[in-house]
């Protein structure tokens, strides 16, 4: 891998430069507690301390709502609405988010490639950023706390700048075209990088193996504590909407008032909603709130073959953004049936 260093003084120059490669999106503080990725005009607005954004990065590739077709009803014609996406830069992507995008890639592009997704994905430049976990993060358990591929550049915080891993031809290009921004990585930087990684590793809420979780989950689905947890659930869908890998969508045709045209739109759906499992005739494959509640646990913990991970990347969004305060990791730990303290020591 190629490494370069970006010194603190050059940071804003670098960010400014990124704008030349496409519209720059980065996390900004949108309210007292929350962050979201927005288009950046002034690079000094960028929030580096953020842990998670209220809308996951999937919004750039599968927008919350998008028009797929313009439909001419009378002639039965469908005109696809695929935009010509201009290049854009996503700055500040954490490791788990990058893995999440790779999961979406596999879903959307491996088989029956989705042109809407693909055209955006092609245009997106991904700039990673190292982070420190909070109490909801468990990417270490999901083994998504460090990424090897899926980014163009990845910035690792150093006391006086950033150690950058260059991860793609686009990344090389950015480095090559701006030699004045970067310097060589020194031994001191390597030590600092190591220190940061060690400090970070010690900060997670718990440790150990999570590989057996899907079996344990399957075996404990009838445990009583699930009833209690499902009882707390509001069925609001915040967990799935803020999940970086949840991507269920619904499709609807909206006719115009004159009945001549319609648009076919798709928009984020959630398995926490009643109609998600409903089929014509009234049969519902997930009729109760508990069924729906558990469905997310089942789905997120299942094995995602193409990447050899689970669908869940351990970002903790679903817990952080759950208005009912339901602790996803906490519940999984219960499934593992080990007290948290023990896990920490283990």
């Amino acid at each position, binding site marked *: 891998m190629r490494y370069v260093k970006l010194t603190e003084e050059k940071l804003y120059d670098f960010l400014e430069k990124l704008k030349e490669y496409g519209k720059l999106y980065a996390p900004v503080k949108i309210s007292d507690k929350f962050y979201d990725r927005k288009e950046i005009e002034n690079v000094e607005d960028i929030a580096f301390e953020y842990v998670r954004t209220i809308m996951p990065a999937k919004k750039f590739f599968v927008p919350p709502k998008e028009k797929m077709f313009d439909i001419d009803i009378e002639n039965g014609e469908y005109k696809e609405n695929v935009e010509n996406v201009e290049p854009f830069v996503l700055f500040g992507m954490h490791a788990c988010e990058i893995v999440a995008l790779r999961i979406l890639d596999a879903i959307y592009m491996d088989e029956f*490639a989705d042109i809407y997704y693909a055209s955006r994905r092609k245009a997106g430049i991904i700039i990673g950023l190292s982070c420190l976990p909070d109490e909801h993060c468990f990417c270490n358990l999901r083994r998504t706390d460090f990424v090897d591929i899926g980014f163009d550049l990845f910035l690792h915080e150093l006391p006086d700048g950033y150690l950058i891993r260059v991860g793609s031809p686009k990344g090389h290009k950015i480095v090559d075209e701006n030699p004045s921004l970067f310097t060589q990585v020194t031994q001191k930087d390597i030590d600092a990088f190591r220190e940061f990684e060690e400090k970070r590793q010690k900060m997670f809420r718990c440790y150990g193996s999570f590989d057996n979780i899907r*079996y344990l989950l399957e075996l404990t689905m009838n445990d009583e504590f699930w009833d209690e947890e499902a009882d707390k659930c509001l069925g609001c869908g915040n967990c799935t909407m803020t999940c970086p890998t949840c991507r269920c969508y*619904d499709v609807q045709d909206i006719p115009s008032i004159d009945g001549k045209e319609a648009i076919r739109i*798709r928009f984020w759906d959630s398995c926490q909603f009643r109609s998600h499992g409903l*089929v014509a005739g009234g049969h519902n*494959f997930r009729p109760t709130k508990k069924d729906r509640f558990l469905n997310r646990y089942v789905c997120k913990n299942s094995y995602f073959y193409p990447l050899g991970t689970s669908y869940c990347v351990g970002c903790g969004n679903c817990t952080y953004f759950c208005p009912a305060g339901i602790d996803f990791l906490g519940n999984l730990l219960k499934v593992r049936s080990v007290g948290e303290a023990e896990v920490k020591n283990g």
Partner: protein
Amino acid sequence: MDNVYALYKCRVLRTYELTDDVRLFLFRFENPEIAESWTFVPGQFVQLSIAGMGEVPISICSSPMRRGFFELCIKKAGRVTSKIFELKPGDIVGVRGPYGNGFPVDKFEGNDLLLIAAGIGMAPLRSVFTYALDNRWKFGNITVINSARFGKKLLFKKELEAMRDVAEAENIRIIQTVTRDPDWPGWVGRAQEHIRHANTKPEKSYVCVCGPPQIYTDVFNKLIEHGYDPRKIYVTLERRMKCGVGKCGHCIAGSSTFLKYICIDGPVFGYYDIISTPGLI
């Protein structure tokens, strides 16, 4: 890159009333090239789109041997299907597909074939059946058990009825049975109760089952009781679907150790998939 959600125009050629709420539609692709090249495996389905109304997944119920044409058998169930129901010859619809894995008909060759359908479940099985008829020499004995609650609800009743006598001579047995119809002159009872009347030899039979989820367990038990090989039992499953190609997430089913998309990993599943996966049926 092609848009997987793009639709081929198809024209309705003929409609035929099967029951009061199920109709059979014959379609042809408007584009002759596609009509020529388009093919499928029995058990696969298409996404059928009505402009301004939406799309629905529908199993193809005709035989793949008839190029350029295909039949869909549709039950009036909700918004889109009600609209489909009103289609008349000459109307245009959008179709994409075929999707799903379909039945492994190649593996079936040289064996007996037992098809067990309940209600609308006859639709995908009719495709297997007509395929087998078109390739009669490749298969051994065939039994079709077609069940419904009332005689007037039996799908393809006349079609099957008409061939019954000829069929026996060809080692094809047709059992049409109803559960709640005192006026029905034929077989009565649920589909599984007639497994014993099948002409298929359990040890060399493949079995396809399609119907509402509630019947599967009973049917399996009966099949095994009669000595059918669990490895040779297939079912087709149903879920809500919006895309048909593994994107929209609605048809994901199963449990954390075996999570499947009904649309791309199914809709046809084997017996062991089913019993080792809570939540699949």
